[in-house]
């Protein structure tokens, strides 16, 4: 078990590079158990790279990622899923020619408890009634918002201890964005720990307890929403810092 005073996710001095170009240049941040932590920043800051490195899709060049006291940096994605980390990827990446049910089953791929998995499937349908209506439909035929719900539900099917979400509001209509954030708040109420990357800083700061600002591969600011600096942070999240 982890000690209570340890954060659930602790990233330190993380470096990830594409060839010679370092996208993460020594990132330090942490996510507390039971919190919604939000990562803001302009395009190209390295937010998605951080998510993909945490999930094991990208291999870091240096630094550490500790999850619940275990080092997971550089481990294979399936091992990280087994530890209890699930990522809702940018652009949703549903399996387009598979039915909604099969997408959810794929999310539960590592689980062997058929009965419990079936019960979780019903829970997902209760949480996302739209997915139940479309359960036999191919995922590629769903609307953007429905696909986002499916991607979230698929990630939840692995029963993660930490849910990573990369830009869940991307390309969605304002009403749908509100629905997605309502879902995020609901999940948090039910005890989930969520680490959220968002471009939509206004919405993100409404739900988060803690936020980080990332610029050019480094965390440049961290704090709690409502603090004085919020306007400045939002400006930089959209536009980048003045020197850029």
């Amino acid at each position, binding site marked *: 078990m982890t000690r209570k005073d340890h954060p659930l996710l602790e990233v330190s001095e993380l470096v990830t590079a594409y060839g010679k170009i370092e996208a993460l240049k020594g990132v330090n941040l942490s996510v507390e158990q039971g919190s919604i932590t939000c990562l803001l920043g302009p395009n190209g800051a390295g937010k998605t790279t951080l998510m993909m490195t945490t999930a094991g899709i990208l291999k870091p060049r240096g630094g550490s990622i500790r999850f619940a006291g275990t080092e997971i940096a550089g481990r294979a994605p*399936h091992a990280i899923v087994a530890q209890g980390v699930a990522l809702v*990827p940018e652009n949703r*990446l549903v399996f387009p020619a598979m039915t909604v049910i099969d997408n959810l089953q794929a999310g539960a791929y*590592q689980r062997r408890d058929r009965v419990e998995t079936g019960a979780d499937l019903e829970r997902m349908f209760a949480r996302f009634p739209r997915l139940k209506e479309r359960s036999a439909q191919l995922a*590629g035929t769903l609307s953007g918002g429905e696909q986002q719900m499916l991607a979230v539900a698929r990630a939840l099917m692995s029963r993660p201890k930490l849910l990573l979400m990369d830009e869940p509001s991307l390309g969605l209509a304002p009403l749908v964005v509100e629905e997605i954030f309502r879902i995020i708040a609901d999940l948090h109420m039910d005890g989930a720990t969520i680490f959220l990357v968002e471009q939509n800083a206004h919405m993100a700061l409404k739900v988060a307890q803690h936020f980080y600002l990332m610029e050019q591969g480094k965390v440049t600011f961290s704090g709690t929403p409502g603090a004085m600096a919020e306007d400045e942070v939002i400006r930089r999240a959209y536009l980048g810092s003045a020197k850029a």
Partner: protein
Amino acid sequence: MLDFLQSASDGILFGATYALIGIGFTLVFGVMHKLNLAYAAASVGGAYCGLLIVKVAAGAPAFAVFFGAFLAGGVLGYLVYLTCFHFIPVSNPLAALMATVGMLLLIDEIIVHETDGVPLNYPAMFDDVMLRVGEFTLRGDLLMVFVVSMVCMAGLLALLYKTRLGLATRAVSQQAVAAQLCGIRVGRVNAMTFVVTGLLGGIAGAMIGASVGTLSPLLTTPLTIKGLIVTVIGGLGSIPGAIIAGLLVGGFESVLQQFRGVTERDLYVMLLLFVFLVFRPGGLFAPKGGRD
């Protein structure tokens, strides 16, 4: 008219083996987005391995030979995966392609050396059965080939749509990154795809041997080309496409062999491919839903 029907039906029955070979190409392409050019050669190799059973136990039933070919095909499929894909960097697709060409030639050479280049007799089942409807006949051995091939395809579809491995295979072929995020090991799925297509290839090789009556190393190259034609006509990555295209090419070449002779036959098959490339480049069934 009767000649036409007769040759078309014989060809369609035999085309089931082309369908199996096409499925092998298309499934590996669907999962890895790479071509395994050694596939038809490995399938013929598997069929040859099945004959070893007759060598050990003379008078073994044809069924045992087929089953041996099935298993040997799976083993060969895994070997092709190890030698041509597993250790070769993903970032260099041409390296894997060239490795499979090398494997195609290697398997060919081994067969030629082991058999001194002489065709070997291949056992069949029901080859003394003839179903007659007036002047029209159905050869029992060809019917057997058709039925066995169809059973294998049904087995493959059941595997893909009813099992955990099938779910993982479909997931990897549609969205490899998301599959990894679901905890699926892509490397294992790739390896299993080669084993499964290898099993099908072994059966396809054995069925070709059974319907022709002999196996010859000269089969590998034309079978590779037919397999690729079937894959393109069916639509790269589409299993139903490969099945229909396999039967179509089988029937088509048989009819043209009847009317234009065996030497001209493949010319028309190439023309058929050409027509498809010009008028329907995506094939009969372009796979729905892209990779991204």
